[in-house]
């Protein structure tokens, strides 16, 4: 289908499929739902399974050699994931996922505001939280709840008809009462990439904290949270070739030590009496209870796998995929592509609206053609409301995605309206 003769990176795309057992089971699968969750390579599965089969033991509790070795493996995984995103070791907290990480921040600030911990992070009635209309629910509802608990006010940055927000629109919303700006590094619907530097500068100019939803960036491009200068960031392992059940919270060291832990229990304390508990410094203060131990080993292996590919190369590969996705959608009659226009920077995510055919039906048709994509509101109802639709059809890529996949997607997309008898 592609006629400009460009090829994707020789090391990525089809060449990588051999590493992913999912593709041995489904050799013809066109898996374009990596934005929802990615497949896992053998290296990740084996790291976890080998650990579970031979080296499994409790970590950070007790003194046995087995515990020592398991703790060592667990902490090495932390170092690896921290290094992968440019965080210090003490700045990386294991969480149940990105959603959990974002809640950890908002619930912690709630407790700080209620006088349960360092009040440097407390919000008062009338303080403002800025976020975008493009937010995934995970980076929206926790702030709604925080606002309800503290009397703070949400100040949304609107999106345009293509679903895009701008730094100018954000500047117009930020005031001296802005205490926190939450925003998506990459939108999971439009693929828009945020001008992080500008947002950080804006936040600093009013003394606000920044919270970066890095779910869709960390798996797909080089991300260095320290260099970006954000205060907090969240991402999930399962979108970056790692296991489900684990994610990470990044926070600048002094902020993490000040943030009250929302989840409490074992292994995060120093001294506990019946009345009081004193908490450890970060990251352990946030890691109450038995941690996702084998998942951390898998997460570390995923970071190592991506590091070996090189995130610059991954981004370059996915830029070519993104271009091809845009081209495929743009050339199909009756299909409207949301997000950045052709020729503009975007992640390898393309959401489309097929005129006259509901997204569920589009999805079912593509599925029948062996093309797995995602339909629905993608946990971004406000953004879809702004786009004027209840749902869209989204294709999203990863390191194993190839231009052939995009071609198969484009082909099937071209047949949808015919099948449902919609006249062009």
């Amino acid at each position: 289908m592609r006629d400009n003769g460009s090829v994707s990176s020789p090391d990525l795309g089809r060449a990588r499929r051999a590493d992913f057992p999912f593709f041995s089971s489904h050799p013809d699968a066109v898996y374009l739902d990596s934005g929802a969750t990615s497949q896992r390579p053998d290296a990740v599965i084996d790291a976890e399974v080998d650990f579970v089969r031979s080296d499994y033991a409790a970590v950070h509790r007790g003194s046995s050699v087995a515990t020592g070795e398991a703790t060592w493996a667990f902490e090495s995984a932390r170092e690896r994931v921290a290094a992968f995103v440019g965080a210090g070791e003490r700045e990386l907290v294991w969480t149940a996922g990105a959603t959990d990480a974002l809640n950890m921040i908002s619930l912690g600030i709630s407790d700080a505001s209620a006088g349960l911990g360092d009040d440097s992070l407390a919000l008062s009635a009338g303080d403002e939280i800025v976020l975008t209309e493009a937010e995934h629910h995970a980076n929206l509802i926790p702030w709604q709840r925080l606002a309800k608990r503290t009397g703070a006010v949400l100040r949304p940055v609107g999106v345009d008809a293509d679903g895009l927000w701008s730094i100018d629109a954000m500047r117009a919303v930020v005031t001296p009462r802005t205490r926190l700006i939450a925003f998506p590094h990459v939108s999971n619907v439009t693929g828009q990439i945020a001008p992080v530097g500008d947002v950080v500068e804006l936040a600093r100019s009013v003394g606000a904290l920044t919270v970066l939803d890095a779910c869709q960036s960390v798996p797909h491009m080089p991300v260095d949270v320290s260099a970006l200068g954000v205060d907090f960031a969240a991402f999930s392992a399962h979108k970056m070739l790692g296991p489900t059940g684990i994610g990470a919270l990044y926070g600048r060291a002094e902020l993490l030590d000040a943030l009250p832990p929302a989840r409490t229990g074992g292994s995060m304390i120093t001294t506990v009496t019946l009345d009081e508990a004193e908490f450890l410094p970060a990251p352990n203060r946030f890691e109450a209870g038995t941690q996702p131990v084998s998942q951390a080993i898998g997460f570390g292996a995923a970071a190592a796998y991506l590091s070996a590919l090189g995130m610059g190369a991954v981004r370059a590969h996915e830029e070519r995929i993104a271009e091809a996705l845009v081209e495929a959608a743009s050339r199909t009659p009756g299909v409207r592509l949301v997000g950045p226009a052709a020729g503009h920077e975007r992640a390898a995510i393309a959401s489309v609206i097929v005129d006259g055919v509901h997204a569920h039906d589009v999805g079912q048709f593509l599925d029948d053609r062996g093309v797995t994509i995602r339909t629905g509101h993608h946990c971004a109802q406000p953004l879809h409301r702004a786009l004027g639709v209840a749902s869209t059809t989204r294709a999203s890529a990863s390191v194993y995605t190839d231009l052939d996949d995009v071609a198969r997607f484009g082909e099937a997309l071209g047949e949808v309206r015919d099948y449902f008898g919609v006249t062009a």
Partner: protein
Amino acid sequence: MSDLDDLYREVILDHNRTPQGKGDPHAEAHSHHELNPSCGDEITLGATVDEAGTISSLHWEGQGCSISMASASVMSALLTGASRDDAFARIEEFREMLRSRGAVEPTEELEDAAAFQGVGKYVMRIKCAMLGWVALEACLKESAAA
């Protein structure tokens, strides 16, 4: 017949193009709103049950995929004029057919609604097909309680 064609039978595509029973649900004695949270599809359905326990009038509005819209349409045709008890029975039968993932054959009583048998194979679409039926069920329960 391919799986896809089995899902989207002609009768479904027809009902989707020219749906029956569309009208103001709030003009009826009882109305109910149903939402499929995973896709945002929604239906508001109203029904009036007369003293004899017959569904004398039934109207709905909504937006959604072809399965949910066609299913509400087929149901309107099937159950307008039915007794409440028969309607409960048909709703249950329809649900059973879908949940059985193809194992339970529809009876003749389901008429055109039998065309939705293929939906059972697609777990994620069962909710779509049930949307209008669940809304009617709620209206009927309310009317029975009143």
